[in-house]
């Protein structure tokens, strides 16, 4: 009889962890676990939802069907996404770091989300090098690195400091181990940006259950309680980006119909417009150019944001800027600025109009009209502006829903999904009562007085033209070519008569779509769409191509993502080489390209030579993990 061996415990559960057993001298069975049970037993740890924002990060948890936003020791719900490397060797994260933006600009890193997953030399990174006070450098695999006094860091490493802090907040509040999370990203993030975000969370010691689209998260926070089929529009106007997502929710199934967005449009643009007004006023009245001093500009920027927030409630707001310069004899010059809501709205209107253009575009893509929506959800700090609410209401023809705090709703949705994915039943969350009343109209800013530390703000980028695309190997796709699809006689196929019943089948289910078209480059620098945007994920698509030259020996599959007709204008994800093709006349050799996009937004690409059956495969996530 065996006295020792290996087993898995508990054997009746999934994810059972490996163990060894021995029979002791007195006949006692000893079982020794190998590894950490928390790694394999999902119910021993807590999963949180993290909304990793450009400006602020929010963390929430869903337990016992109740969802709540986790507050830090000082009771703040927003964790500024800022990391600062202190001269004494400490790494500050959050509000403490934000305070150092003016004092220690070179070592205080903010707005990483703008750059994460982007390549060195891309327009966004080039622009950031000009405008950001901290230093950027080219790192391995063309990934940008930030250079600080504590050393060089990749962008996911910077983000992971923020996530680590969010994890600490969660663990301190919940009093238990947190090792899994759902992290949200803007809907129009591409695969590189998603994998970089995933890596950031992994580095912070969290297993990423899902990288979730922000608007989908918002709908999860709202949509689950509804019965019957409902079409929802999620209008997400944040600090740096704007997104619109159209969803259909029915019987706990959330289906994304379409998404559209503008990654360079946000509340920051409105702040910048106000900032410009103040600057002009200072120049005109005090003959002083505030742009010459970083400290004064930071003051002006904070004032602009303060005015904007004040004007959500009041018709008129004023700020006093102290010591913006020194006159004769060192007398400090103060400056007072007043702004009315009408003036603000005149400044903000062009930006709000641009959001509505995106809305029209998304509706056109979905072939729906405005009246077919049963609800409009507002997400993002910028939606607190009364003008935004009015314009959205006028455009959709119905009042938008703002029961959840627009800053928190994404994290709440992420937490709901985290609970769903860990098999903990998430009942439909209810927006907190008191908040629902408070946020009826005109949101109360969190900070009352005018002492907000300068929030990290980034000017909106202009995208200059890109270099001409490299020559591609492919000819136009082949249309009607003979294919060997067998014509089945369905009577002879034993089709199972029922669907399996999934164990978590009674929970809410989310069917997400891919926000950007995935294509390959073809001859002439054009693209051929393989997986069009708004396709449900996971999905698999194949397409046949023919060679473009005589005796072509190899084919390069260049994968890109985006809505432009030219490959060069889209984001390049990577490439795949299929070599040693047998000699053939041009157009007579067929290569089948397959794209397989999994539920986490990772793309697996395959290219198969139809004549020989030889196949090469790659996964775009590998090349994406540059950080």
């Amino acid at each position: 009889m065996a006295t020792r061996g290996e087993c898995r415990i508990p054997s009746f559960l999934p994810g059972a962890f490996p163990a060894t057993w021995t029979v002791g001298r007195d006949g006692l069975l000893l079982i020794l676990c190998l590894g950490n049970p928390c790694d394999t037993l999902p119910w021993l740890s807590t999963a949180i939802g993290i909304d990793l924002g450009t400006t602020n990060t929010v963390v929430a948890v869903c337990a016992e069907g109740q969802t709540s936003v986790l507050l830090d020791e000082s009771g703040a719900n927003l964790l500024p996404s800022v990391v600062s490397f202190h001269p004494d060797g400490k790494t500050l994260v959050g509000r403490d770091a934000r305070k150092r933006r003016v004092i220690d600009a070179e070592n205080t890193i903010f707005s990483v989300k703008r750059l994460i997953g982007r390549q060195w030399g891309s327009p966004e990174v080039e622009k950031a090098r000009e405008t950001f006070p901290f230093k950027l450098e080219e790192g391995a695999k063309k990934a940008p690195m930030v250079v600080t006094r504590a050393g060089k860091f990749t962008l996911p490493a910077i983000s992971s400091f923020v996530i680590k802090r969010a994890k600490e907040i969660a663990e301190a509040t919940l009093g238990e181990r947190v090792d899994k999370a759902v992290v949200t990203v803007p809907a129009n993030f591409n695969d590189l940006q998603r994998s970089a975000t995933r890596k950031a969370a992994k580095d912070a010691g969290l297993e990423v259950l899902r990288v979730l689209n922000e608007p989908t998260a918002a709908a999860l926070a709202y949509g689950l309680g509804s019965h019957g089929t409902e079409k929802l529009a999620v209008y997400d106007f944040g600090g740096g980006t704007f997104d619109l997502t159209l969803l259909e929710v029915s019987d706990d199934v959330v289906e994304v119909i379409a998404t559209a967005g503008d990654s360079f449009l946000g509340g920051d643009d409105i702040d910048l417009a106000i900032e410009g007004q103040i600057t002009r006023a200072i120049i005109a009245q005090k003959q002083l150019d505030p742009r010459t001093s970083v400290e004064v500009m930071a003051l002006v920027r904070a004032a602009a944001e303060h005015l904007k927030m004040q004007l959500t409630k009041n018709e008129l707001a004023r700020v006093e800027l102290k010591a913006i310069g020194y006159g004769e004899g060192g007398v400090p010059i103060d400056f007072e600025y007043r702004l009315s809501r009408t003036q603000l709205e005149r400044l903000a209107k062009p930006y709000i109009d641009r959001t509505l253009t995106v809305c029209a575009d998304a509706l056109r893509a979905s072939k729906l009209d405005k009246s077919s929506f049963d609800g409009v959800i507002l997400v993002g700090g910028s939606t607190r502006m009364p003008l935004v609410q009015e314009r959205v209401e006028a455009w959709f023809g119905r009042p938008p829903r703002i029961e959840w705090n627009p800053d928190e709703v994404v994290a709440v949705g992420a937490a709901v999904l985290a609970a769903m994915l860990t098999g903990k039943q998430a009942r439909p969350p209810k927006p907190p009562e008191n908040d629902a009343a408070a946020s009826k109209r005109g949101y109360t800013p969190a900070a009352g007085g005018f002492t907000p530390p300068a929030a990290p703000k980034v000017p909106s980028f202009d995208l200059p033209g890109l270099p001409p695309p490299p020559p591609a190997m492919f000819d136009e796709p082949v249309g009607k070519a003979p294919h060997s699809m067998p014509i089945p006689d369905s009577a002879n196929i034993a089709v199972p008569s029922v669907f399996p019943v999934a164990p978590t089948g009674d929970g809410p289910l989310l069917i997400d779509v891919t926000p950007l078209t995935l294509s390959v480059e073809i001859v002439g620098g054009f693209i051929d769409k393989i997986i069009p945007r708004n396709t449900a994920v996971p999905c698999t698509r194949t397409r046949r191509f023919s060679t473009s030259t005589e005796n072509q020996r190899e084919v390069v599959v260049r994968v890109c993502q985006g809505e432009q007709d030219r490959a060069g204008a889209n984001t390049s994800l990577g490439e795949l080489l299929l070599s040693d093709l047998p000699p053939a006349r041009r157009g007579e050799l067929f290569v089948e390209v397959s794209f397989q996009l999994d539920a986490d937004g990772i793309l697996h690409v395959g290219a198969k030579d139809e004549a020989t059956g030889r196949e090469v495969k790659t996964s775009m996530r590998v090349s994406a993990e540059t950080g």
Partner: protein
Amino acid sequence: MGTVPPRRRSSMRIAAQNPERDTLVMRWVAVIDKIDYLALLRLPKTPSGPSEDDVRRAYRAFARAFHPDHYRTASPLVRDAAARIFSAGAEANEVLSDPMLRVRYLRCLAAGEARPRLEDLQKATREDARAAHKPAASLATTPQGRAHAERADKMIELGELAYAKGALEDAVRAEPGNAGLTAKLAAVEARVYAPRKGGQR
């Protein structure tokens, strides 16, 4: 807001291993590339094809059964199988809920082709969309075909799409090899099925 609810570990749900479900998934994946879209979504085979609501309801039930979210704790084999099945079902939903693709697909199905390549279907519908803008009479090549086509054009003008469809069917019968007329018929069929959506394309 901000207060954390008390938690009891005992009430946490434990997902149990499910050999019965796994066997079913493997049985489905074995036939997934051979069966037609209707069988895949378990839609009944009616002469007129499934309605928009039927498709939507069937797809939701399908997604409930096969969405990868439900298979996170399953073995990799079952998980991959479920993802493959889901991809196929999502494609079925895409084809059947698009009026133009649906017409073309049902035609293939009637001809005994259960799983035409999606790119071929899409190419066919692009032709249909082009034909939709041309008068049927301009597509016909024989006097007999033209007579039917002219009748169809008149009916389309009057908004009598069902009659137009009948006339075009006659025209196609008169000219069986005419791809243009076939495309025009497909476009009209799509409009009969979904007047608003089909007309927009």
